């Protein structure tokens, strides 16, 4: 079932490629239907998921036995919810209106290809397979930005590719280092988790750990290796931005949990504090730089740096407390980190899709070009308002649940860092209020006097994303239950 979820989009990509001469609408809705297949399959998987704490619904095939490589997929609570969120976001992104430049079949094929590899990363239980999917995600995103972007799209795409490829090459070395320490040699993730191959290995363990930290940190991204993110977002088509922020960034933070926290627990415990410091720097710095951005997409992009900082703070706090006796706080922090990934995916996905609606109508991302749209476009205003308030962590919406868990959990471990990190929440509030004010309130510039409100497709897509933002915010238990089952298992409680 999981394999079908991974590869259905790949088949779908081929199908869409064959629709070269079909009408644009046919291409789009075929792609949306195909993109929804994994969502349905993953929801079915959720229904069969027991939350035992170990990997479930495992499917495996020998692949390169001589190297200890196998094809193996399966889920725990964390990867399950991330995969479902990703699948939902892919459906939303495929459906969202965008200028496909007469090459719809290719565009949708790349979107479906990206869906395949992204789900592959979350579901892979073999480190080699993980890496293959991880790296292929770059290729898909490279083409989406480079071909369908605007502005200096090719340059942004290339910077994105080279920067993140550098990150993943360092990670490859780290993977090899981890792999070489196993006996017998294996890439099998459950085995790696159980064996902790680099426990007590001194310098090697440290080097491998930092290799992962750099490689995954670029992807996340953490300050100071985040500068590929803003240009990639600004010049990408909006749905690609939504996927990039909503799904691809999570590949990094997911790796922090699955690989670094689980397979290199000893090293993570040792280096949790510096990592938490980097996370807090990302939180505060990301928020402040976002506040200083006059460009809508750059501003949202930097809030991603801020939000991924929350996630890493939660993971680091969880790691630091391992063996320290406060299991409740650490499980809370780790759960919060995962909820933050889901929440950020939905919220920032929605925000980037909304910025696409601005581009389609106004041809500009400059905040100063807009104003007073609340009267002309109540739906656009409402959707943006909900997404912005969710992003700044208002209770009743998904971001609050995540951030509350992270900060309350982290306080037990790093009270001072948690306190400093709270400043990020304050700055985020200020920057979103200012943004709402400048885009929607005050006087309507004359040039927008015939501004169109959201159409039916846009409204439906955003409503479905924001529905889950509200559902998580009001009653998160359905989401927390699977995540907690995994967090408890990881924390050994």
């Amino acid at each position, binding site marked *: 079932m999981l394999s079908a979820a991974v590869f259905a989009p790949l088949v779908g990509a081929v199908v869409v490629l064959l629709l070269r001469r079909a009408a644009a609408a046919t291409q789009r809705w075929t792609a949306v239907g195909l993109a929804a297949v994994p969502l349905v399959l993953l929801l079915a998987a959720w229904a069969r998921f027991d939350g035992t704490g170990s990997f479930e619904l495992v499917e495996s095939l020998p692949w390169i036995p001589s190297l200890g490589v196998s094809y193996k997929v399966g889920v725990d609570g964390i990867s399950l919810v991330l995969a479902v969120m990703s699948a939902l976001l892919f459906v939303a992104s495929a459906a969202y209106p965008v200028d496909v430049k007469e090459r719809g079949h290719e565009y949708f094929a790349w979107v479906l290809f990206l869906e395949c590899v992204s789900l592959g990363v979350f579901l892979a239980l073999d480190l080699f397979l993980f890496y293959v999917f991880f790296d292929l995600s770059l290729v898909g995103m490279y083409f989406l930005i480079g071909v369908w972007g605007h502005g200096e799209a090719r340059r942004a795409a*290339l*910077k994105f590719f*080279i920067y993140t490829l550098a990150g993943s090459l360092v990670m490859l070395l780290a993977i090899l280092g981890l792999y070489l320490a196993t006996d017998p040699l294996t890439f099998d993730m459950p085995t790696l988790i159980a064996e902790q191959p680099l426990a007590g290995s001194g310098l090697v363990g440290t080097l491998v750990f930092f290799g992962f930290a750099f490689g995954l940190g670029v992807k996340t991204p953490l300050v100071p290796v*985040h500068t590929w993110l803003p240009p990639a977002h600004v010049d990408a088509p909006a749905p690609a931005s939504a996927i990039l922020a909503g799904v691809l960034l999570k590949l990094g933070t997911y790796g922090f949990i699955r690989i670094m926290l689980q397979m290199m627990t000893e090293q993570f415990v040792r280096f949790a504090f510096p990592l938490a410091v980097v996370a807090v720097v990302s939180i505060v710095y990301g928020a402040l*730089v976002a506040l*200083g951005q006059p460009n809508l997409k750059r501003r949202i992009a930097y809030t991603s740096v801020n939000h991924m900082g929350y996630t890493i703070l939660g993971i680091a706090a969880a790691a630091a407390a391992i063996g320290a006796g406060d299991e409740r706080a650490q499980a809370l922090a780790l759960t919060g980190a995962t909820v933050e990934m889901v929440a950020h995916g939905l919220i920032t996905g929605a925000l980037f899709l909304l910025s696409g609606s601005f581009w389609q109508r106004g041809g500009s991302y400059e905040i100063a070009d807009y104003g007073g749209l609340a009267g002309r476009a109540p739906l656009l205003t409402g959707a943006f308002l909900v997404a912005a308030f969710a992003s700044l962590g208002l*209770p009743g919406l998904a971001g609050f649940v995540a951030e509350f868990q992270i900060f309350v959990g982290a306080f037990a471990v790093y*009270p001072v860092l948690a306190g400093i990190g709270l400043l990020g929440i304050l700055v985020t509030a200020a*920057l979103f209020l200012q943004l709402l004010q400048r885009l929607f309130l005050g006087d309507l510039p004359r040039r927008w006097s015939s501004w169109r409100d959201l159409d039916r497709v846009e409204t439906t897509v955003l409503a479905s994303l924001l529905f889950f933002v509200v559902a998580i915010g009001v009653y998160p238990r359905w989401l*927390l239950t699977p995540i907690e089952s995994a967090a408890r298992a990881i924390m050994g409680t």
Partner: protein
Amino acid sequence: MSALAAVALPLLAGPALWAVGARRARRQVGGAAAAALAATLLLAVVAAVDASTWALEWGAGLRLTLSAVGVAGPVAVLVAAVGATVVAYASVHEDDPGLARLLGLLVAFVGVMQLLVLAADLLTLLIAWELSAALSWALIGSNWANGGDVSRAAHAFNVTRAGSLGLVLAAGAAFAGSGSLEYTALDGLDAGLLAVVAGGLLVAAASKSAQVPFSPWLYSAMAGPTPVSALLHSATMVAAGAYALVRLGEPLSAVGWFGPTVVAVGLTTAVAGGVLALTESHGKRILAASTSAQYGLMFVAVGVGASAAAAAHLVAHGLFKSLLFLAVGVGIHATGTADVRSWRLRRRLPRVAAAAGIGSLALAAVPPLGAAWTKEQITAAALAAGPFVGGLALFAGLLSAAYAARLYVLSFGGPPRTGAAPPAGRVPTVEIGAVAVLAAGSVALGALWLPGGRGVVEALTGTRVAHGAAWEFVVSLALVATGLVWGRALATDTERSAGGLPAWMRRVTADWYRIPTASRRLVADPALALAAGLARFDDVVIDAPARSLATIGVRAANVLPRFDDAVVDGAVRGAVRLGRALSRLLGWWVERGVDGVVAALAAATGRIGDLSRLGDDRGVDRTVEGIARSVGVAGRRSRALQSGLAHRYYVIAVVGLAALFVAAAAGR
């Protein structure tokens, strides 16, 4: 269950009203809104009588709990009662475009406040706390097309949100110490963590209740329509700070500095706000300054351990302050100005003036009104705590009487002898009814003076109310009388620009003692400048290593081939033998594994080279293009390397993994 219903009904009814109300007649929307809150009032009463509780499990360690036990019950009733009255008033007082939105938000706001009042754990409290800030943002910015109003709404939100971070810290400390967020868990907390809870709660409460130095946000909140002010200042939002202290003050009194600090904040605000109220001539601003001052008195009460007196005063204040706001709103509507120096409306609006008179006497704390009883309890408790605290509390009482008298005489007093008789204005019955209901409430609260009053308050709050000495009461009343006379004199003294303190004092107090200017210069402007600076820094400096690496990469790509031929090739020939041996030693898997990696890399980088050439026709950055092309060259070279030149292959294999193996050797 009734506790849940008292919260859920307005929370659901509010958005529904907004959604369906826009196309309905004023009477229907207003009726529905008032009915929803009347039902909420009923539910609140039931919840208070039943001492209803309710809980919802969110996840491990996260449990939302509601409880109408103790002081929560009566305050919930007050919130619903004031809310219903204010909403009824709003439904006839406010202009129609946006009326459904305004009423919907007001109803939802009452629901959020019910949640806050009935909360029995820090998570629920924080949820309500932040939601009330967001809703007040929307309410204050009701007139969203006016950029100035919206900025003031943002000011209010940002200040109160800064304070609410204190609650997050408090929750973190409580959870770290007890693994629980329930109020009851605070009792067992160790001293250090309890101090964090106390500090966090104090900051949160002070910001919400507009205490110094957070007070000016309440002036910004004046941008909202009158009913919004009436609700914000009396039973919701601002009340939340003092209420939270009342609710949680007991366990926190174990923290040594907590009580004295709360007292200091409260006294400072009570005196500063009182003086400010005497110098203002904008009707709503006089009331806003007095709100800060009155909550200051409640802070004093909590700080000296008289939570019951604070709770009682909170209820009394809720009634008379909403009354005064609504009355002033009628006056603004009738005169077209908020400057009360030109009002003197008693002849034009006799019934409203009568109600405002009752509200003013309550604000001045004149017996037998209930507000006088509650204020005297606070004064008595303050005097019991020491002469300095008691003296300042008495002085704050004198100020209250003075600004109450001055406000009343200026706004609703009889016309000056020289004034021409103005035409009579017609005030809608619902507005008259609303102020009448609130005035009746203020009068009814006078029952507190009856023999059983003290017992009722003690039973409801679960804490003792101190007995003050008779001479203290006499002194306090004398000061109130002095205040009344002084305030009336200030109002009628035409020499001093028709009322108010001397000009130099007005200069000192102007704009909340210039706190907004100071906070803008010290906090907001530097933060914005820092943000702008960091944004540039990020583009220019943080991105620089990546850019310079790219440049170095380009240069190196041009130099390396020569270097490779001349130096490396020779130098590594020896190493090759070592490498070969090492490789053999480590088995055939390295060969296969690295082979695959090298091939994949070569293919990938070659692809980039090709791609960048395709895209180089215009505008592609030369640096990035250069690196891609040279990597492409390198890619093709490395492909060539694999075709037969085995020794080079081993060089790459060794160089690629040497670091790891050395490290492995060192580490094992």
